[in-house]
């Protein structure tokens, strides 16, 4: 038994672990580099100008930002974490976070090319439902206090930011004339009484941006490791005999109306695939109807094992739980209703070589 663990289980686990790591880490790095540069180069006030003032319209627009800023789910978390700290309303940030991995051109193209027999139906319905669900979550978040959604540390940073901006506004309204721009070029998580952009040299700002990027990379990387460890454990055959492979268990549900989408959402959760390429896996699940595959394609980029840990760098555990359960039921219900409409007389979509 122990010999098996060292000679078989550990090498298989390590192989799986490293394969997911080398696939996902570059995308996390991309996200954290963007986040580092946002930290240093994007003024906090820019967020106010980026989106419509009307909160509902802002959420609706946030769901489409992935078209302009296409990022996968690994990269989006560090980006929205930084954007929230820059003053982007959490409802907009989370709408973007949930929608961007689905509502973007790369995902649309990969979905269309994976489902050659029904490209428009599968890609279109995936993008549409991904957008609608993300916007729905955003609109609900508009009515929930920020403290119930964001981690206390981020809430206190936001409070400090708001206080500092209020103070600045007051200072500019009532005080003396200003010979230069006092806006600080980057947002620090602690109080600064000395905001002098002109004192920073360009090289210093680059160092600060890359330090922030690395800090975020380590922060997110740690949670990513926990996530992929679980994914690798689930996908490695256990060291005892007679274990049933996960795919066999999943395939047994293919004829069940509720069971099929539930099982595929469970599979998407455990496999933690990248949204840019998960359509090819979905297309290989040829025992399943398009509705269940749609559930797989919409749920996976919004909630999976690795995301659970990445989300916990921004969101409270309670909110993540509510979000996971809510997404599971809403996406499951949509897939059951939309499935038959999607391809009433068409054969099950198949993988194209």
């Amino acid at each position, binding site marked *: 038994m122990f010999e098996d663990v060292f000679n078989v289980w550990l090498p298989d686990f390590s192989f799986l672990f490293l394969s997911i790591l080398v*696939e996902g880490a570059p995308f996390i790095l991309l996200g954290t580099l963007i986040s580092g540069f946002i930290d240093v180069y994007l003024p906090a006030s820019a967020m106010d100008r980026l989106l419509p003032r009307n909160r509902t319209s802002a959420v609706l627009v946030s769901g489409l930002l992935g078209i302009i800023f296409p990022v996968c789910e690994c990269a989006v978390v560090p980006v929205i974490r930084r954007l929230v700290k820059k003053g982007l309303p959490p409802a907009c940030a989370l709408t973007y976070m949930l929608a961007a991995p689905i509502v973007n051109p790369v995902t649309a193209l990969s979905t269309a090319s994976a489902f050659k027999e029904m490209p428009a139906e599968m890609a279109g319905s995936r993008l549409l439902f991904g957008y609608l669900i993300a916007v729905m979550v955003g609109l609900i978040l508009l009515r929930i206090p920020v403290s119930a959604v964001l981690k206390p540390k981020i809430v206190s940073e936001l409070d400090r930011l708001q206080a500092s901006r209020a103070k600045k506004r007051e200072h500019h309204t009532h005080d003396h004339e200003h010979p230069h721009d006092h806006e600080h070029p980057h947002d620090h998580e602690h109080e600064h009484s000395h905001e002098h952009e002109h004192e920073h040299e360009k090289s210093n700002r680059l160092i600060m941006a890359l330090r922030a990027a690395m800090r975020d990379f380590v922060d997110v990387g740690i949670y990513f490791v926990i996530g992929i460890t679980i994914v690798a454990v689930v996908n490695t055959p256990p060291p005892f005999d007679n274990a049933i492979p996960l795919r066999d268990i999943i395939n047994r549900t293919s004829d069940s109306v509720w069971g099929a989408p539930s099982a595929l959402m469970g599979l998407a959760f455990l496999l933690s695939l990248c949204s840019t390429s998960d359509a090819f896996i979905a297309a290989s699940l040829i025992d399943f109807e398009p509705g269940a595959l749609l559930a797989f394609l919409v749920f996976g980029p919004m909630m999976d094992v690795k995301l659970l840990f990445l989300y916990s760098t921004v969101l409270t555990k309670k909110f993540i739980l509510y979000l996971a359960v809510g997404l599971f039921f809403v996406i499951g219900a949509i897939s059951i209703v939309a499935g038959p409409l999607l391809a009433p007389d068409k054969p099950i979509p198949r993988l194209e070589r």
Partner: protein
Amino acid sequence: MKATINQIIFSLATIAWGVVPVYFYATGLVGNYLAPNFHLISLAGGLAMIVLGLFNLLNARRKVGCGHDHDHEHDQSPVAAIFLMILPVALCSGFTKHEYSTKALTWKGLYKQGPARSSLFSRRREPFTRATIEKSTPKSKDGNYLLTITELYWSAGDKEIMKAYDRLPAELEGRLIDEDPKLNPGGNRKRLYRLFMTCCAADAQVLGLALEFDGPLPDLEDKTWVKVSGEVAYEHHDGQDFAYLKVAKVETTTAPPPNSQFQRRP
């Protein structure tokens, strides 16, 4: 001082993560871990991690910002960085054999047959005949069609496609492994397999095909890369159709280059 130490540890963690994909790419092992379209992304990511880590390492002591170091903002614990970033990568790099064990291959479907995929063979729903194969498939010097395991694996179950492939002289490339004793009552079979990967090894599907020998079984180690030629045949058992090859010749070969290892054509 504490901020500088944290900075150094984080830099080392970032470099450690960068070294792995760069090493895999440089040694060609990347083909075992990732599908070809991820190879360059992984290399670029690895190099960027090394550059980012080195840059921050070289500037670890430098004070930037408003005259003081900003790294005290919300640093992750350096202990966490060591135990959750550096150590897992180091241990997994030590333990990995860069491929699945036979047990994992079995778990991933080595001895199973999936349903037929008719759409793989005809995009326009045209009839699939021997002439279709003739038009689209190159031949070896010996006149065998250079097929792939994926083609034969996914042909089983579709009567029209099976008819076109049946008794076709074919050459296949893959890795040789012992047949499941339950599928080998006569003791005259081996199995040829390849991995079909979409993104990374985690999602790889193992596609296996039985090889039937007239004479003695080849005395080759498990997972040896081979070229086999013979005649395509089908059998029906347990309510399913299975493709297999009646082998005429088997010879060892080298592993294909990383960017084609999991592609359909050798």
